[in-house]
């Protein structure tokens, strides 16, 4: 039985929670938010930043609820005379609290799942969608997406441009303000093409064409890293790509076509997947 002058614990906890949540959420949204990864290097990356901000903003009240309650309970409800073993009140449950908890958490979860799905289906969020992508950013008919095939092998990435004679290059440059359609595949084991600033990650599986979309913005440097353990040099499988102006890109790709003409002659015709020998044991 609560005594007459026992404080209203529940009210106090709620008030503390409100204070912490408001301050925390404001900090997260306005201070951390703009700087959240992966940055605004592409349209999809900006989408991820917004998504992360929403997630973080929702996490703060949830974490605050648990932490504020625990701090309060551990201070207020601690045993002050440990020598004597006195039990607490036999409270076994409270149906309405359980119901409210269930309803609130379900609403939060459904909201997050819905919001995430909407954002995902809008433009694919830069992730690899497999050979039959369902979420592509809107492309204009006059400006078709730039197709870039990312060929991952142990232990470097090469890039092939089907629209430019199937030329293959070791270093990637992309034009600004363009919708790029990556086709990521592997020649041997599972790798993962991670272009951090563009917010792109697509696993490279052998024999699979993994499509990822990104809409570049202005010129910038992009860190490309392999994000799936692929053998001894996985940690060293990184390079830098560049997003440059459209004019610079046009010049660059022409120069590459000339420079790598000898290699292009020996390449197999452009295809979504490759199975080069030896597939089984070498030697």
């Amino acid at each position, binding site marked *: 039985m609560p005594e007459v002058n026992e404080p209203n614990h529940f009210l106090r906890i709620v008030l503390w929670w409100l204070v912490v949540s408001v301050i925390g959420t404001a900090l997260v949204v306005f201070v951390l938010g703009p700087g959240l990864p992966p940055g605004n290097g592409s349209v999809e990356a900006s989408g991820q930043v917004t998504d992360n901000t929403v997630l973080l903003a929702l996490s703060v009240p949830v974490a605050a609820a648990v932490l504020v309650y625990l701090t309060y309970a*551990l201070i207020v409800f601690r045993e002050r005379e440990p020598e004597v073993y006195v039990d607490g009140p036999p409270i076994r449950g409270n149906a309405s609290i359980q119901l409210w908890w269930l309803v609130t*958490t379900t609403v939060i979860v459904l909201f997050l799942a819905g919001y995430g*799905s909407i954002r995902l289906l809008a433009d694919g969020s830069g992730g690899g969608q497999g050979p039959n992508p369902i979420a592509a950013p809107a492309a204009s008919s006059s400006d078709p997406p730039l197709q870039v095939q990312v060929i991952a092998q142990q232990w470097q990435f090469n890039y092939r441009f089907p629209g430019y004679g199937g030329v293959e290059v070791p270093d990637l440059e992309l034009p600004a303000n363009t919708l790029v359609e990556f086709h990521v595949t592997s020649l041997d084991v599972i790798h993962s093409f991670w272009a951090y600033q563009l917010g792109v990650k697509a696993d490279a599986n052998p024999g699979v064409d993994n499509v990822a979309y990104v809409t570049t913005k202005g010129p910038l440097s992009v860190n490309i890293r392999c994000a799936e353990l692929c053998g001894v040099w996985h940690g060293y499988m990184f390079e830098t790509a560049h997003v440059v102006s459209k004019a610079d890109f046009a010049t660059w790709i022409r120069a590459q076509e000339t420079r790598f003409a000898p290699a292009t002659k020996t390449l197999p015709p452009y295809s979504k997947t490759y199975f080069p020998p030896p597939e089984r044991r070498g030697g």
Partner: protein
Amino acid sequence: MSTIAVPVARPPLWRRLVGFNLLAGIALGIIGYVIGQWIGGRFTGVNIAYYSKTAGQNDIAIMLGYFFGVVGFLIGMGFANYPIQRMLGYPPTLAEHEAEEEGVGRYFRLCTDHKVVAIQYLVGIGVFFFIGGLNAMLIRTELLQPNTHVFGANQYLTLVGMHGTMMMGMMTSGILGPFANWVVPPMIGARRMAFPRIESFTFWLLMAAGVVLITTIFFGGFQTGWTGYQPLGDQNTAGYDAYIGFFALVGVSMTLLGLNLAVTIISMRAPGMTWTRLPIFVWSVLATAALMFLAAPMLIAALLMGAMDRTIQTAFYVAGQGGSSYLFQNLFWVFGHPEVYIVALPGFGIVLELLPVFARKPLWGYRLAVSGMLGVGLLSFFVWQHHLFVSGINADLRPFYMLSTELISLPTGFTFLCFMGTLWRGRIRFTVPMLFCLAWAFNFLFGGISGVFLSDVPSDVTTHGSFFSMAHFHYTIMGGLVFTFFAAIYYWVPKMTGFNLSERLGKVHFWTMFLAFNSTFAPLFALGFMGMPRRVVTYNPSFQALNDWASVSAFILGISMLIFLYNVVWSLLIKREPAEANPWHSKSPEWQLATPVPVYDFERTPVFDPDPYPYGVEPVPVGRPVVAPAGGQA
């Protein structure tokens, strides 16, 4: 089983050493390994022999060596005796060193006493936990500098793989092995498990598996990480065979452990121990056991196909030859996701079981807690594709798996609600076990929230395969399982061994571990968000400050484990202060046993108070005494 042990004259030392015990097991294991290698060497056909010669390894011979070695070990331990006896017509019996000699010898052979098996598990898993932890220290040493390499690139990847493999393989049974085996029978009113020999079998199989894993370094190690992705694993030198052997054996051990526990809980409850009266820890064990025997066989299947790819040159996982790398990923994660809930659920059970004792209140929301356990268990089978969000799976599937993964946070939330409710208006005592349970709440909160980030596909695009994912699972698995593992140790060791662990050293251990743990893994969230992938031996120099912070904290975390070890050695081996029968004044059944616990646990089957957590109320009077009263606590 009401035979009273009759003291026998102790046989001479040589007689005690000869027989079906660990020495015989090791001897027959080595002989078996040699036989297996020899058979494999003879088996290989012309083609395979050519490839073996140029590659310099014979995978068939190594696999057969491991297999025959383990079989030889098990025969030497005496596990074949009873089946052969029964096949020859002898009647069923259970007397295998159970009531014979007291003393250390029982711990080094097949013993059907569940208390002995539990302690064997505790020590055995503890040894491999420390080896895995040593690996972690070596990993963090390597990551102190991006461009100075302490270890070779292959050796570093083997360290990483061994750390993960050792921990996941061993600690999956980390709470079920030592604590469920010890505590569940008294909690349900049984004297033993349903299958005592299988109980001992699961332990020795796990030990054999651990030895197999350690031999990997002699064969070049494995560079695939604990997930063992194919076809990378196929390319590996012979060290990967040890990985396959380890996980296959662990899979068998897990399956049988789960089956044993489930059957025990279902069919060996004493009268009065109804489903609604079952302690919450037993419910969590039941849910975990079900996950174990349903998920582990899939791992065995996946690895068996990998072994066939490596030895007899099938192409299950080779894309160009009709196989698919997705097959392994999916099979592995169909096991792998329930696996992490196998690791998490016992933690939930432990904290909800211990909290009533240290808050002196009944568990709040018992039915909600049970549905939380069962809900997590059920949902865990429907979420595995979240490990494959950007791997090129059918894009239609992703919203579904995003939803199912986010939904699993609901039953997890029930556990948190019951945790918080039990604390409400309690009389909280900050003993060492309680501190570890409170740390669980803190750690799992951040682990769980970071899981929500990872389950959200747009966010996952950046964080998949990065250190963010590593921080998430260390917060949930280490922050969840390992902290509750220590809570269980500090809580139950006085009853299991009859000696107290030092409370003061325990608090030093706790605070060092808690602060160092958070200091080690919190920066990793940032590192992942900033773009550092997992399993890398080098990194962008701008990440060095955070890596160094994490490494130094990890070393302190290692020191906290040494403090724990010192506590164990000092309190249990040197000081040996006898424990009271019920130092925590718990009203749970296992504390009503006498200390030290007799071999047969209790004389008469107990009749249980219908209330599982009778705190704050008078216990319901029953017709006859519940059990032999222990230490004056009625």
